[in-house]
């Protein structure tokens, strides 16, 4: 692109910046590059990004994934459920299921109690609480942003 004839600052910059030679690359750069090339070459094809797979592997994966999904959800899972349903429950399993059931009931009760308490509070108080939370959240965000900008002011 030709410089504008009427812009001396642009011409000055163009002529001056051209005088700066290329910076010398670090001596270790070529070793780094060759090591990285070897590392990537040693990576098995399936561990590379999908876009780098060969076309046959890509096509195969596109067919295999839905088939795998269907196999898991459509066949294996129902079969597993059926097998579990038919199997006799052992004492340990029954005890684990019982404990889980008690914990579930307890969590449900706490939730019900919380809901009952909230429903007793007047909507105005709830709105005030939500407002206070929003103000606190916005203040934190604003202060954080201001601190961030202050810290990066000279970048």
């Amino acid at each position, binding site marked *: 692109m030709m410089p504008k004839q009427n812009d*001396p*600052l642009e011409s*000055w910059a163009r002529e*001056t910046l051209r*005088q*700066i030679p290329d*910076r010398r690359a670090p001596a270790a750069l070529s070793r780094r*590059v060759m090591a990285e090339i070897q590392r990537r070459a040693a990576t098995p094809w399936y561990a590379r990004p999908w876009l780098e797979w060969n076309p046959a592997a890509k096509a195969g994966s596109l067919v295999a994934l839905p088939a795998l999904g269907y196999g898991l959800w459509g066949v294996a899972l129902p079969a597993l459920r059926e097998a579990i349903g038919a199997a006799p429950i052992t004492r340990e399993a029954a005890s684990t299921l019982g404990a889980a059931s008690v914990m579930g009931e307890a969590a449900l009760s706490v939730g019900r109690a919380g809901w009952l308490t909230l429903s007793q509070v007047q909507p105005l108080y709830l709105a005030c609480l939500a407002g206070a939370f929003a103000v606190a959240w916005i203040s934190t965000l604003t202060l954080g942003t201001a601190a961030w900008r202050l810290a990066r002011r000279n*970048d």
Partner: protein
Amino acid sequence: MSDSDQFEAFMAAYQDMVYSTAFRLLGNEAEAQDVAQETFVRAWKHWDEIKDGQGSGGWLKTVARNLCLNHLERYRARWKFFTDLRRDDDEDEGREVEFAAPETLESTLLNADQKEMLEEAIAKLPKDQRVALVLYHYEDLDYADIAVRLKVSLGKVKTDIFRARQALLKKLQPQAEALGV
């Protein structure tokens, strides 16, 4: 000569150019090394196409530039929330301005110290100014292309480049301030 030997010779010939392109755009040695490394790894992947040498320098420069711009874009997107808040030096964004400049400016031959000082000054310019200046003066993109590549307004590109030139001029010619530049 094996492909690997040829490639190493190719790298030796172009590594300064690739590294300089990355360093000028990023202003950071470690990031410039990472970009230079990735550029040559990609060159190795396309070695069959570029080993004949026709246009390989241009290919490398383009790949290095694009990697740098992608890197800067990722960084910008990551901190978009914070940097989107207007900064003091963004006042002129989007506004086309005609800049006052002195009638004449003499460009002189730089000595080694001045070249080093100028290189350092470019690296220390604010990122927006540095990237726009380098794309214009070293990568030969025009204002409109730069605006598109950086996803900013034409006015901001002009302002950034003008301010970058001013900063460099003041660094080299302190008397320029007296000229009203």
